[in-house]
């Protein structure tokens, strides 16, 4: 983990409201693994005291990139970042997805910008599996080519049916899981809370392992402020807060205590 003043290489719209920001950030890129994130200080956002966390999308050859969606005033201000600008990032932060026991038939489930760390993951493992990408409309479906070029099977769902199957990503996942009887696909998921919880609940019920990357509002990003906590059941059965930034952002579904 370090603070790096990264220089912007490219910054382009990649579809819908999503942009890819590519940085020259060799120090951060060097140590990054899929599932980790950077805490980015939005340039020229006067009066803002908090950084914004983004999953690492790519980290190779001294370059690090993120894929982000404009959702509020910070990401809006990010749109003005231009090649050559300096962007201050802290990273890599958090823990990566556990990949040791990925098994033969992994399944990735992505919602919206949740594809970013999962695309990174797919590129770092030898096995080829299946990835479910869901979104509200076709404008929220990203990185399909990334997975296809790696030889992964891509299943797309959109809520409005504008691309792939119409419906929720979990419906498509259910259908697929029903065909995988006898295997125990390891799940890796990143996306909105509702999706993560649905994926996690199914996995827990079926006895599958599911690694979920949680999305919580963050302060420090390094474990100091206790803003980003999630209730997690410990090995002793006791439920307590864990810091998503430091102890996560990835937790196994069976230990997560979702809010009622």
């Amino acid at each position, binding site marked *: 983990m370090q603070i790096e003043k990264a220089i912007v290489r490219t910054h382009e719209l990649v579809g819908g409201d999503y942009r890819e920001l590519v940085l020259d950030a060799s120090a951060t890129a060097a140590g990054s693994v899929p599932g980790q994130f950077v805490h980015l200080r939005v340039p020229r956002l006067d009066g803002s005291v*908090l950084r914004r966390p983004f999953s690492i999308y790519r980290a190779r050859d001294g370059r690090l990139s993120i894929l982000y969606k404009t959702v509020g005033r910070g990401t809006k201000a990010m749109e003005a970042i231009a090649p050559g600008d300096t962007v201050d990032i*802290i990273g890599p932060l958090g823990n990566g997805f556990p990949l040791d026991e990925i098994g033969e038939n992994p399944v990735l489930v992505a919602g919206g910008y949740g594809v970013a760390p999962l695309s990174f993951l797919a590129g770092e493992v030898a096995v080829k599996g299946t990835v479910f990408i869901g979104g509200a409309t076709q404008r929220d479906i990203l990185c399909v080519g990334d997975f296809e070029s790696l030889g992964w099977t891509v299943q797309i769902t959109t809520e409005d049916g504008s691309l792939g199957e119409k419906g929720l990503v979990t419906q498509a996942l259910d259908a697929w899981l029903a065909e995988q009887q006898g295997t125990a696909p390891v799940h890796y998921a990143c996306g909105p809370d509702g999706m993560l919880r649905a994926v996690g609940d199914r996995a827990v019920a079926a006895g599958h392992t599911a690694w979920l990357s949680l999305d919580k509002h963050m*302060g420090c990003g390094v474990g*100091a*402020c206790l*803003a980003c906590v999630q209730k997690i059941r410990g090995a002793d059965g006791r439920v*307590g807060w864990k810091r998503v930034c430091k102890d996560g952002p990835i937790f196994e579904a069976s230990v997560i205590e979702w809010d009622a």
Partner: protein
Amino acid sequence: MCVDIAGIKMKNPVMVASGTFGYGPEYADLVDINRLGAIVVKGICLDRWDGNNVPRMIEVRGGLINAIGLQGPGVDGFVESYMPFLRQFDTPVIVNIWGRDENEYEEVAARFDDVEGMGGLELNISCPNVKEGGIAFGTDLAMAADLIGRVRKRTSLPLIPKLAPNVPQVGLFAKAAEDAGADAVSLINTLPAMVIDVETRRPVLTNRVGGLSGPAVHPVAVKQVWEAAQAVSIPVIGMGGIETAEDALEFIIAGAAAVAVGTANFTDPTTVINVIDGMAAYLQRHGFASADELVGSICE
């Protein structure tokens, strides 16, 4: 820039504020702890305490509002998990303590008396985010005086009550603290504040109310520190919205013997080092032989 604050010897008068720097290890990769004047750790009560439900933090214009609710590992948890780490550094450790009632405050204080490597105790009587204890003590003069007096009897460590900002005459509280045996006072804690999501019509923070910190509160803090410093002869530690050396110098000129950087640690962890360096440069440029000379040097 050495200073002696209430018997705590510091390399410089710049510390990190409680709750914004964890217990030390969290920022150790990014900030050289040996360079800090002192490290003030997150609030500790007797036993493990869970704090509030999330969301606990929200950014607002010029600052953030937090309602962590003093989550912490308790005295033993803290001493076991973090003191071995903290003892490695040549930097005083100040523990921010609180209790759900007077007895707990006293007991927590007493428990730290024979912990090795303690620099001092900051007595948090001003947290807006816990129903029990906290700000109720810090906004009632009699309760504050009584509590500080009781804790004083139970500890030989330097005792630094942390004052609430949301009182009309903070000088009275500073004076009451001095009279009750405090070795220094620190201020400001966060300003009680609230954000409502107009779409859901719910408070954004689960605790409804939280505490405002960051640049937005800086001029309020300078005013409170100035008043407190005029009221007492013990050292005053100033904080609230420091982002630059100039922000810190305002406190010193207003009468603070030391300062603490809080929210800005999140914005930019190098802030505290920049403040230390910037302060040293200022002292030299203006021909001050020590930071002490600048303390309270306001020309009115």
